[in-house]
C-alpha cells in the first residue's frame, strides 16, 4: 500500500512532517517508496534545520548500529551442520509427543511471557482442567534442554492420534476448540507512579462459574451459553437479537467482534470465511471493546451488573479474568501482550483508567473529566483518552490534560504513529450541519504537536462517530450513527465517512444500522459492526447532544449488523 500521500504540500514541511518521513528517507528508495517531491522537500528542510539534522543523525546512527549486528559473529560463517539429526534425536528421546506444547506459548518452564519472579500466577493445567499455581524455576533456562524435554514428556503418549485427528477435524470445520471448564483467575495488584491503587492483592479464587457446552454451532439451532439460550440467524451465523460494539482483526482471516445478546456476552469469530458465534460467555454480561494483540492474545472488556468484565483468549480458551477493581469497562487498548490500558466508568467516582502491566492492575480516577469514552495506546508514552471537551495524554507515567476546549465529545480515537492520530465524536450544536437533525460529527487530527479540526466541508449531514480505523496512514474510515435521509424514517442509519487523498467525504450508501466499531486490515479491506433495528423496535436515539455512552445501549430490539469493505465498497456481510 502507499506509504504517505503528503506530497500535496511538500514544499513547506514542518519539523514533525519531516520527522515522520525521516525513517522512510533514511532507508532509501529501495526500502520504502518515497515520492521524489517528498525526498526533495525533506532534503531542503534538513539543509536549513539543525534540530531535524540532529534527529536524522540519530536515526542514521541507530541504523548503522543495528546493521552492524547483521554481521554478528557466527552469522557470516559457512553453513553449519544441519540440526535435523539433533532435533530428531530429541523428539525420539521425548517420545515424540506433548499435547500441551503450543507454538504460541512460552517454553514450559516460562509459562507466561512476562514473568514476575517469585510471584504466584495461575495457569491452566490442561489434562485435569484445573488451575494450579506455578512458580518460576530460578535456574530454569531454555538452554537446559534435557530438563525442558523431560518435564514435558509423557509416557505412552503415542496414543494421541485420536486427539490429533480431532484437532484436525476441528481445524477443518473451522470451529474454535473450547473445551474444559470456565475458571477464574486472579492477578496481583500493583501501583505505579502517580497512581492511586485500590487494595491489596486479592486471594486466588478457583472453581468453575459455569460449564461450557459442547460445540454446536449449526445456524438456526437453539444453543446454550452458560445456562442461557441464544438463537442464531442462519444467514449470518450471528445471534438474531443483540448488538455488536467493537471489532478487532488479528489478520485478514482472523478477527473478533464483541457485544451483547439475549444470553449475555456475545463473541463472534471470523476465520477468513465466515463469522460464527462462539458458545461461551458470561450470563448477563456485555462486551464493549476488543483488542487483538496476536492470534493467541485477545482481550475483551465490558461489564456484568455494573462490575468490570475482562475476558481473555490465550489461543486455547476464553477465560474471564477477575480484576481487582469495580467498574464497568468501555474501552481497551493493548500495546503488547504485557501492557495495556482500559477505560471504565464508576457510579461513584466517574471515569477510571486501568493500567495493565505484567499481570498487575492499577487504577486511576480521572478527575479532569466527568465523561471519558475514547482510548488509544501505541507506546507507554503515547496513550490518549478522549472525553467531553477533553483530550488527555499519558507520558512518563503521568496523565495530563492536553485539550479541555474541544467543542464536542470525543468518542473514538485511533493512533497510527506517535505523530499521526485521529479523534472522532459528536460536535456541539454550533457545528450543526445544514440538513438532518442532531449535530455534526467531530473529527480531529493530531500531528505530534497539535490537534486540529479536520476539514469536513464535503460532509453535509449530521452524525456522530463511534469508531475510527485506518488501513494505511492515507486511507481510513469513521463510522457511527447518522440522521435519516430522504423518506427513510428508520431509527438507525449508518454514518460512514471515508478518508482518502487527504479529504474526508461521506460514503454514498446509508445502511439501516448504527455502527459502533470499525477495523481495517488494509486500505482495501475491513469490517464495521453495530446493530440494526428489529421490527417494532423502540430504541431511543443517542443523538442530538452529548451522548451518555460511547456505544448504543443494547436492547432486545436490535440485531447484530456487520459490514464488509472490499473492492472499494461497503456491503452487508453475507457469507
Amino acid at each position: 500500500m502507499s506509504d504517505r500521500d503528503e506530497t500535496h504540500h511538500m514544499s513547506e514541511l514542518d519539523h514533525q512532517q519531516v520527522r515522520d518521513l525521516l525513517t522512510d528517507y533514511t532507508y532509501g528508495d529501495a526500502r520504502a517508496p518515497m515520492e521524489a517531491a517528498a525526498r526533495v522537500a525533506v532534503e531542503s528542510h534538513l539543509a536549513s534545520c539543525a534540530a531535524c539534522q540532529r534527529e536524522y543523525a540519530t536515526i542514521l546512527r541507530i541504523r548503522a548500529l543495528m546493521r552492524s549486528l547483521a554481521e554478528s559473529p557466527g552469522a557470516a560463517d559457512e553453513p553449519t551442520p544441519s540440526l535435523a539429526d539433533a532435533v530428531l534425536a530429541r523428539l525420539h528421546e521425548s517420545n515424540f509427543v506433548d499435547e500441551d506444547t503450543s507454538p504460541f506459548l512460552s517454553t514450559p518452564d516460562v509459562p507466561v511471557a512476562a514473568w514476575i519472579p517469585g510471584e504466584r500466577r495461575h495457569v491452566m493445567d490442561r489434562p485435569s482442567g484445573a488451575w494450579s499455581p506455578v512458580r518460576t524455576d530460578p535456574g530454569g533456562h531454555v538452554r537446559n534442554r534435557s530438563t525442558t524435554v523431560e518435564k514435558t514428556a509423557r509416557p505412552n503418549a503415542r496414543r494421541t492420534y485420536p486427539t490429533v485427528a480431532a484437532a484436525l477435524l476441528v481445524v477443518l470445520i473451522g470451529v474454535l476448540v473450547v473445551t474444559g471448564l470456565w475458571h477464574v483467575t486472579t492477578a496481583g495488584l500493583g501501583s505505579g507512579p502517580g497512581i492511586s491503587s485500590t487494595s491489596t492483592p486479592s486471594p486466588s479464587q478457583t472453581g468453575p462459574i459455569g460449564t461450557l457446552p459442547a460445540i454446536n454451532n449449526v445456524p438456526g439451532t437453539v444453543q446454550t451459553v452458560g445456562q442461557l439460550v441464544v438463537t442464531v440467524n442462519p444467514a449470518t451465523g450471528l445471534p438474531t437479537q443483540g448488538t455488536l460494539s467493537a471489532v478487532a482483526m488479528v489478520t485478514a482471516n482472523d478477527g473478533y467482534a464483541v457485544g451483547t445478546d439475549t444470553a449475555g456476552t456475545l463473541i463472534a469469530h471470523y476465520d477468513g470465511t465466515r463469522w460464527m458465534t462462539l458458545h461461551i460467555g458470561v450470563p448477563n454480561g456485555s462486551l464493549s471493546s476488543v483488542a487483538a494483540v496476536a492470534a493467541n492474545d485477545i482481550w475483551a472488556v465490558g461489564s456484568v451488573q455494573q462490575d468490570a468484565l475482562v475476558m481473555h483468549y490465550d489461543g486455547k480458551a476464553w477465560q474471564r479474568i477477575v480484576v481487582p477493581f469495580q467498574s464497568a469497562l468501555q474501552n481497551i487498548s493493548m500495546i503488547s501482550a504485557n501492557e495495556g490500558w482500559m477505560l471504565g466508568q464508576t457510579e461513584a467516582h466517574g471515569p477510571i483508567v486501568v493500567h495493565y502491566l505484567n499481570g498487575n492492575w492499577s487504577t486511576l480516577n480521572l478527575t479532569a473529566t466527568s465523561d471519558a469514552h475514547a482510548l488509544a495506546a501505541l507506546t507507554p508514552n503515547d496513550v490518549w483518552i478522549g472525553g467531553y471537551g477533553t483530550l488527555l495524554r499519558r507520558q512518563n507515567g503521568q496523565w495530563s490534560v492536553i485539550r479541555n476546549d474541544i467543542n464536542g465529545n470525543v468518542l473514538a480515537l485511533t493512533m497510527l504513529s506517535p505523530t499521526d492520530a485521529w479523534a472522532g465524536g459528536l460536535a456541539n450544536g454550533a457545528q450543526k450541519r445544514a440538513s438532518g437533525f442532531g449535530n455534526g460529527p467531530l473529527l480531529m487530527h493530531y500531528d505530534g504537536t497539535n490537534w486540529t479540526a479536520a476539514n469536513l466541508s464535503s460532509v453535509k449531514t449530521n452524525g456522530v462517530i463511534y469508531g475510527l480505523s485506518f488501513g494505511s496512514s492515507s486511507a481510513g474510515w469513521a463510522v457511527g450513527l447518522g440522521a435519516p435521509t430522504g423518506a427513510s424514517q428508520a431509527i438507525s442509519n449508518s454514518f460512514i465517512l471515508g478518508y482518502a487523498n487527504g479529504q474526508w467525504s461521506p460514503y454514498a450508501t446509508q445502511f439501516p444500522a448504527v455502527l459502533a466499531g470499525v477495523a481495517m486490515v488494509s486500505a482495501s479491506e475491513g469490517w464495521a459492526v453495530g446493530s440494526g433495528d428489529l421490527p417494532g423496535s423502540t430504541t431511543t436515539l443517542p443523538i442530538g447532544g452529548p451522548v451518555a455512552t460511547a456505544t448504543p445501549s443494547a436492547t432486545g430490539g436490535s440485531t447484530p449488523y456487520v459490514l464488509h469493505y472490499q473492492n472499494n465498497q461497503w456491503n452487508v456481510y453475507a457469507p
Partner: protein
Amino acid sequence: MPWKRPPEEDEYSREMDAIHHAIHGDQAAFRMLVQLYEQRLIAYLTQMLGDHELARDLTQETFVAAYRALPRWQPPETPTASPLAPWLYRIATNRALSLIRQHHTEAMSWDAVRVPFPTPGIGLEDQVVARILLRQALESLSDDDAACLVLHFVAGERYGEIATRLGLTGEAVRKRVARGLVALRAAYLALDTEVRS
C-alpha cells in the same frame, strides 16, 4: 512408505505435502522441513541474541516444539512459498524474548553481553552498544513487534518481505517497525544520556 520429495510440484504443495507426512510421523518429511528452515532461523536468532551457539540451541527448541504442535498448525488461507514460516518465526521469537526477559529478571547486567569475535571493520564498542540497544528495545516489545524490528533494522528486510515471512499485512509491519524505532530511539537516547553524565 517412506516419504520422498515429489519431483514436479511447486514449493507450496511440496511443503504442504511434507507437513502432512510429518504430522503422521514421517521423520524423513520432518527432516526436510528442518533443513528447509534451519539456516534462516539460526541467522535470525543470531541477529536477535548475538550468540550463534545459543541461536542453534533455540532453533532446535523451535523445531521440537513445532513438531509436537504440528497437528494444530493451520495452513495460510492463500498459498505462499513458505507456509510454515510465520509459525516457526513466532515460536522462535517467543522463545528468544522469553530468554531475554528471563536474563533481565535474573538481574544480569549488560556487562555480560557477549561479543566474542568483533567483525573486521566494525568497532567492538559499536557492536556492544548495538547489542545493548537491541536487547533493551526488544524487552519492551510484543513478539510480532520484536520480529519486525529485527527483520527490518538488523536484517534489512523490506516491509513486503517481512509481511510474507510473518503472515502480516504490509501496513501492520509498517506500524510495528514504527513502534520498534520508537523503542530503539528511546533506548539510544537513554544510553546517550547515561554515557554523557
